């Protein structure tokens, strides 16, 4: 039995220790906001915050996450940055199919936590690990800037 710190709460799971955090969140804990897209940390749909850093949960064994503070899309909106990012996403009508957007929001929130006014190059660097097949990138860029302004 492992104890996880997820969204500020202690949660127990009997998942096998090698199970990626993503599948513990989705199948064991019923938190389905984080998505499966590639299983190899190539697309970013599974992005969560581990001790504040954007992390691909599809390749992180749950045992390795046991002592860390995990934030998921389900709770990122409780923080001022996460809230601002989500509101900017809605204002810019970013999502199309929406499947990758939890991961995009998590990567954007992590970026704004360390960089209050990201440049286009900063956004490219922080978000290029998050694939969107609907190619909503133009609006993601605008939404990150909008969120940054609203937080300034």
């Amino acid at each position: 039995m492992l104890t996880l710190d997820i969204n500020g709460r202690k949660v127990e799971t009997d998942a096998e220790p090698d199970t990626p955090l993503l599948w513990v969140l989705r199948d064991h804990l019923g938190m389905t906001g984080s998505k499966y897209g590639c299983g190899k940390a190539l697309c970013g749909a599974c992005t969560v915050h581990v001790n504040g850093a954007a992390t691909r949960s599809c390749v992180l064994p749950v045992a390795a996450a046991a002592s860390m503070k995990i934030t998921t899309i389900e709770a990122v909106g409780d923080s001022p940055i996460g809230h601002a990012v989500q509101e900017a996403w809605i204002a810019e009508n970013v999502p199309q199919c929406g499947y990758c957007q939890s991961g995009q929001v998590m990567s954007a929130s992590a970026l704004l936590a360390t960089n209050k006014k990201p440049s286009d190059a900063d956004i490219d660097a922080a978000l290029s690990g998050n694939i969107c097949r609907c190619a909503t990138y133009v609006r993601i860029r605008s939404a990150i800037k909008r969120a940054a302004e609203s937080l300034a």
Partner: protein
Amino acid sequence: MSTVEKETLLHASRRDVLKASAALTVAFWLPQGRAIANGTAHAAFEPNAFIRIGTDGIVTVVSKHIEMGQGAYTGLATIVAEELDADWSRVRVEGAPADTKTYANLLFGSAMGTGGSSSISNSFDQLRKAGATARAMLVSAAAQKWKVPANEVTVSQGVVSHAASKRSATFDELAAEAAKVPAPADAKPKDASAYTLIGKPVARVDSRDKSTGRATFTQDIHLPGMLTAAVVHPPRFGAKVKGFDASQAKAVKGVKAVVAFETDVRSGVAVLATDFWTAKKARDLVTVEWDETAAYRGSTTELFREYRELAKQPGESAKKVGDAPAALESAAEVLEATYEFPYLAHASMEPLNCVVRIGAQDCEIWNGEQFQSIDQMVVARMLNLPPSNVTLHMLYAGGSFGRRANPHADYVAEAVAITKAAGVDVPVKMVWTREEDTKAGYYRPLYVHTLKAGLDKSGRLIAWQHRIVGQSIMAGTLFAGPGAIDATSVEGASNLPYTVPNLSVELHTTKNRVPVQWWRSVGSTHTAFSTECFLDDIARHTKQDPYALRKALLSADHKRHHATLDLVAEKSGWNRPRPEDEVWGLALHESFNSVVAQVAQLKRTANGLKLAKVICAVDCGLAVNPNIVAMQMEGGLGYGLAAALSGAVTLKDGVVEQGNFDDYPVLRMNQMPAVDVHIVPSTAKPTGVGEPGTPPIAPALANALALANGTPVRSLPLSAQGITLV
């Protein structure tokens, strides 16, 4: 068992109560204790199959089309809300049940499904009428209740009013009376001048749920007792399971069954377990012996060689004007080019999946459901059930780009076959890995095109011969036509908008076992490239401006083409001097009755060429939601750009060589250009927007690259030609 798991069981039982208490409400249980009723529990007024007004005043619009990113839910609801004069903030959308009679796609004949960029265009009049009828019933109800003339009753933002008597009521307050009013046959939709929602950038209905992780996709469905199935697919198309060893897999804790399955199109082995990771781990331990007697063992390099040879011979005629061979013979000069296009995977973000429950006399399916009529028919046949006993819950799809509308119901049938083979009565969620999604086929076909242009002494275009070689998408499906020409192989070429006195478009339809399917914009994915690149070849050779040449070759009756081309030229500043470090390419293409023109602006940087910006103009008739039109142009060209830059599925000895985003790279943030979208003002009926943004980007970019590098691009993807952008 974790506390959360215990909690879910409690909610599971609540789900049964919900289901029992509301006969018409299809409730399904979701994680985190959210029970979502797929429908309003108490409909106070249901004027027709598309509108339900609840006791809470919420207007529910029933969408016969799936929301897979293209904005259909928002657009369809906008049309209803406009005619109903509803309060937009109180409008909700839900997916329609499979009911071909009520919810047929009017452009598909009698079939229910989503595709061909038709959601808005086929629904526009139908939903205007539905909304106007419901509004008239509410007005009648108010007039009767207040004893005032109906023509003095007004409706605005969900409130019905009579100014003279200062009375007003919300929809729900009039619902009971309105339900008793007979539906008028002649309710008249609004004049466009009265629109308050149509033509405005109304906010999408799905933005919040999709920005907060709350939107429910097939992947997110959890049902009581549900098992998850991971699959082993054959290494080659057409191979069949001969035998398998599951002894190691069965030893994995949580594995419930390992079964072989077979559908009309695929054979394989599935591992059913309590959760995906367990199923996947066990799946990796299964060894399968394959019967490869009928397996495809070809390679894409051989196919290209074979197709190039075929292109040397005349094909079946798809379009003939004048006498192209004779005109080529007599031409002062003949230009030639061969274009090559690889197989392409759809690579939606949500790998294919499907949830199935097989009951004693019924079957229930939860799916990003794009093709109800086919899926329902195939499943009914497999289970020997009447189609009406197959219930389809249409969920959001995490992309599709055509893939979820498979003409053989391939992955839906597979989920049913697995569930049937396992003999379980609990629901089964089949989940493909990214690798299975990439390798399972149903690709945009591989094509070779050859084009010849005949020029007279003054450089005037007098002959155009276009030969296309490739597999038919429609062959072997219910949609195959009687003739030798599959229209989807030649669309965009056989209706070349340019006036050429001698024109011949020919087709060689090839056959092999690599499964093919429509892929966002279908035939235009390749015909736009070959026609628009070849036209620029002619422009360069005859030293004409690409915009001017197109204008000169478009007849006056191509009004939409002229308007779109002019708009993109104006907005890009085509006829003004360009920045010295920029090279521009232009392309124009019609698909799904909409015309799109794009100017790709390449910038020379210290590190190489960068696609800095794309100016896009579109004529899609009346833009029901201009913001969604812009989104579809941005996304459509991004999708086309991904394929142009690096999209290619290759086969060697029958084995697909790509599997994940490392070897099938797609567009990323750093590769996305800035995009400016401009819509040609129009009052014509709406035409497609989901696909038409895709075709022009590759030729626009290639035309810019031809100028920048001095050599034309004749083969995609660019990465295979050693061309990369920064």
